[in-house]
C-alpha cells in the first residue's frame, strides 16, 4: 500500500529569503499535521513559512493519514530533525510513533506546540506532560490544575471543573511574565495581539513549565476574568518545548497568524526549542501596548522597502516605515558603516525629485542628529525649497554641533 503522507518542501514560497541567505540553514524542522478540528491546510503552510522566515530552518510538512486511517503508516524518522512542530488534533498515533516521539523529546529534541494542538491526546500521559497544559476532550481536575495569573501572582488552582474554552475572537493585550527567558528577552512587557481566540481554563500537569506570557480574559468576551497563559516554555527530559496557544486560523482569515507578535514569538520559540538560545533580534515592527501590528504575507518589510514607502509618504499615511528606519538607526548604533549606509539612503530620498516633500521632512529630522558631513550638501540644497526650508535649517543647525 502506498504511503499516505506527503512531503511538501516550501522552498518555492520562499524565494526572496533564500536569495538573501544562500547557505543551507543549520536546523531541520518537521511540521506534523493532517488532522484537526482547525483548518490545518491553512495554518501549516503559514507555520512553515514563518519558521523558514528565520533563515535558520529547513522545514518539511508531514501529514498523517486522514481521520480513521491506518495510523501505523504514520512513522516519521524524528532523528532527521531538531525541531518538531505540532499542528495536529486527531486520532492517536501508533504506540511505536508515540514512543519514538517521547524518546525524541526526552533526548533533547525541540518541540513547538501550536494553538489547537493542546486539544490532542487527552489520554496520552507523556504527551500531556510535554505540553504542560491542555483543554477540551473531557479534561478536568484529574488532568492537573488550572494555571493562570491572578493579581500578578501565578496560581495553580486544583478546583474541580472542565478544561478549555474560549469566547468570541477579539484583540487582546499580551503581558510578558518572564522577561529574562531567551524567547521573551527584550520584548515589550505589554503588547497588543491581533484578533484571536483566547484559550482559557486550560489544565494539565504543568511541570517544569514557565508561563512566559498571559492575556487577560475579559468577561466582556465571555472570559474568566483571569490572566490566562498564552505562551509557555517547558523542559521534558533534555527536550525544550515552546507552546503557543495563539494563532487561530481558518480559510480566509489568518489575521491572528499575521500578527507580528505571533510571528516573532513563534520564530524565537522555534529557535530556542531547537538550539537553546535565540539569536534573532526583536524587530522594529513588534507590537506594543499602543497598537496591533500585522505583517501581511507573514514577512518583515525590508529596509529598502521601508525607504521606498517613505519616498512616497504623505501626511495621511502610516508612519510605520519611518518608525522602522528609526529602529534601524538604533540597531546600527556603534557601527559607522551601517549608519553611513542608512544616511546614504536618506540622502537618496532628499535628492530624488520624485520623492514626496513629507517624506523628505522625515528624513531631514533623522539626518539632523545622526547625519555626517556626507548629507550636508544635499540638505543645503533644500534650504531653497520653500516647503522644506524650516526642516532643512533645523537639520543644518543641529549638524553644526560637532561635539
Amino acid at each position, binding site marked *: 500500500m502506498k504511503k499516505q503522507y506527503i512531503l511538501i518542501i516550501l522552498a518555492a514560497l520562499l524565494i526572496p529569503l533564500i536569495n538573501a541567505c544562500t547557505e543551507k540553514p543549520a536546523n531541520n524542522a518537521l511540521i506534523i499535521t493532517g488532522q484537526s478540528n482547525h483548518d490545518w491546510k491553512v495554518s501549516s503552510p503559514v507555520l512553515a513559512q514563518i519558521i523558514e522566515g528565520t533563515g535558520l530552518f529547513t522545514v518539511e510538512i508531514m501529514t498523517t493519514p486522514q481521520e480513521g486511517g491506518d495510523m501505523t503508516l504514520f512513522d516519521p524518522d524524528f532523528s532527521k530533525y531538531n525541531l518538531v512542530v505540532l499542528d495536529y488534533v486527531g486520532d492517536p498515533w501508533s504506540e511505536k510513533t508515540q514512543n519514538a516521539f517521547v524518546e525524541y523529546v526526552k533526548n533533547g529534541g525541540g518541540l513547538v506546540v501550536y494553538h489547537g494542538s493542546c486539544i490532542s491526546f487527552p489520554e496520552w500521559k507523556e504527551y500531556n506532560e510535554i505540553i504542560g497544559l491542555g483543554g477540551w476532550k473531557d479534561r478536568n481536575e484529574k488532568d492537573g490544575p488550572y494555571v493562570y495569573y491572578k493579581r500578578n501572582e501565578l496560581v495553580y488552582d486544583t478546583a474541580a471543573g472542565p478544561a478549555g474554552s474560549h469566547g468570541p475572537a477579539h484583540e487582546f493585550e499580551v503581558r510578558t511574565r518572564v522577561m529574562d527567558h531567551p524567547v521573551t528577552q527584550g520584548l515589550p512587557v505589554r503588547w497588543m495581539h491581533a484578533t484571536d481566540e483566547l484559550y482559557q481554563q486550560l489544565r494539565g500537569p504543568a511541570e517544569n513549565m514557565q508561563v512566559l506570557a498571559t492575556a487577560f480574559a475579559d468577561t466582556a468576551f465571555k472570559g474568566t476574568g483571569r490572566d490566562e497563559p498564552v505562551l509557555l516554555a517547558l523542559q521534558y527530559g533534555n527536550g525544550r518545548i515552546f507552546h503557543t496557544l495563539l494563532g487561530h486560523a481558518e480559510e480566509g482569515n489568518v489575521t491572528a497568524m499575521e500578527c507580528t507578535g505571533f510571528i516573532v514569538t513563534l520564530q524565537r520559540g522555534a529557535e530556542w526549542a531547537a538550539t537553546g538560545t535565540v539569536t534573532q533580534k526583536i524587530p522594529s515592527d513588534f507590537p506594543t*501596548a499602543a497598537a496591533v501590528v500585522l505583517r501581511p504575507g507573514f514577512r518583515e518589510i525590508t529596509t529598502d522597502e521601508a525607504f521606498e514607502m517613505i519616498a512616497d509618504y504623505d501626511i495621511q499615511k502610516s508612519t510605520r516605515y519611518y518608525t522602522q528606519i528609526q529602529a534601524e538607526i538604533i540597531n546600527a548604533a556603534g557601527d559607522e558603516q551601517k549608519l553611513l549606509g542608512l544616511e546614504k539612503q536618506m540622502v537618496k530620498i532628499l535628492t530624488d525629485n520624485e520623492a514626496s516633500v513629507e517624506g523628505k521632512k522625515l528624513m531631514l529630522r533623522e539626518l539632523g542628529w545622526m547625519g555626517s558631513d556626507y548629507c550636508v550638501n544635499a540638505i543645503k540644497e533644500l534650504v531653497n525649497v520653500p516647503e522644506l526650508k*524650516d526642516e532643512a535649517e533645523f537639520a543644518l543647525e543641529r549638524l553644526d554641533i560637532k561635539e
Partner: protein
Amino acid sequence: MSGKTSRREFIRRSAAIAAGAFVIPEIIPSSALGMGGKTAPSNRVVMGAIGTGSQGMANMRDFLRLKDAVRFVAVCDVDSVRLNRAKQVVDTANNSSDCRTYGDFREFLEKEKPDAVSIALPDHWHGIIYTETVNKKFHVYGEKPISRTIRDGQTIVAAVKKNNIIWQTGSWQRSQAHFHRGAELVRNGRIGKISRIVVGLPDGGRSIGTPPVKEVPAELNWEMWLGPAPKVPYRGVSHWDWRWILDYSGGQLTDWAGHHIDIGNWGADLEYTGPVEISGKGVYPPEGIYNAPVEYDFICKYANGIEMRVANSSRLEHGMGTTWYGDLGWIHTNRGNVLTASNADILKEVIGENETHLYKSENHWQNFIDSVKSGKPAIAPIEPAYRAISVALLGEIAMTTGETIKWDPEKEEIIGNPRAARLLERPYRKPWTLPTV
C-alpha cells in the same frame, strides 16, 4: 509680607501707572481691603497665570484654596474658551469682573506686573516662557518637567539664578509627609549606604494612529500653540494629549520624572548632580502621531557608584514609585500614602536632632507663597528640577541613539558623542529663539 516685597510691589505699580501701561482701572473689592479680619491687599501675593488648561487650573484652584494668600489679576492662554473659563474662576474668587485676559504671553509679560506667575504649558514652550518670565523678575510656580531639552533647562536655571527670584516646581510630592519621610530616612542612612534606586513611572497608552488633518477650532491659536515646535497640520490633538508626541514632550517618562526621579534624587542626595553614564532601551509605538516611548528601561550610573534604574512600572517588582536599596535594606514610596520597607522597624526610626532634616512643607502652594513673602527658597527649587528632568532626557537620548551616553554632570555636557550632543537641544522654529539670560 516682608517690607522688601511690599516696597518692590509699590515701586512696580507706581512705575506702571506713571508709564500709563494700565488702561484698565483696577477695582479692588472691599473683601480685599483688610476689613473684617481679612488680609490686607498689600499682603496678598498678586498673581497671574500663563496656561489655563487642566494643570494650570488645578494649580490656580490650589492657590485660591489657601486662605487670603493670593489675588489673581490676569490670565493668559492660546485657547479663548479656556481663557474665559479661567477669567470666570478668577472673577468669582475676586468677586469682581476685572481679571485681564491675554492670548499672547509677550503682551502679558509686557503689561502685567504681578509678584508671581503660575505657569503650566506644554513642555516645548517652557524654555522660552519660563526664561522670559524669570527675566522679568517675577516669582514663578512652574510645572514639571522644567524643560523639553537639557539646553532649555540650563537656560532656565541660569535665568532663575541670575534674577534671584523664588522658583517652585510643581513637584508637589515633596510636600507630602510620606515622601518626605522616606527621603529623610534614606538620607540619614537608615538603610545603609545606597547602591541602587529603582524608579517606576507609568506605561504608555494606546495609539490613535494618524488622524486626518482637521480645521483648527476657532478658539485655538494653533500657530501660537505650536510656537517653536515644527510646523505641522492640526489633527485634533493639542491640549493634554501633546504629551504623547515627541515634538512637545517625552511621554510618561518626562511627565513623571519631576515626581519619582525627583524624590529618588532627594533621598539619595543626588539633587545637585547628575549621572555619568546612561544606557537603555525604549519601546516605541509602531506607528501613529503618538510617538513617545510606551515602555522604557534605562540605567544611570552616578560618580559615587549609585545606579538608578528608570522604567515603566509594569517592568518592575515594586511598580510605580521610588525604591532605594541600601546595604541594610530597602525603602519604597509611592502615591496613595505608600511607604514600605524591607523591615517595618526601619519606618519607626526617629531622626535625631543633629541628623539631616530635609526641608519640610505641608502644602506645596502655601510653601511657594511663604517663600515669596519671606525670600527663602521654596521646597522644590530650580536646580533639583533640572537635575530630575535631565535624568529622563539623558535616558531619552540613550534610547534614541542606542548608545551608552557619557555625561559630565559638572560641565553638563555629553562626552565624546556628537550625535548624542545634538539631541541636547531642539531647534526652534522662526521667529522663536531661546532667550538669553
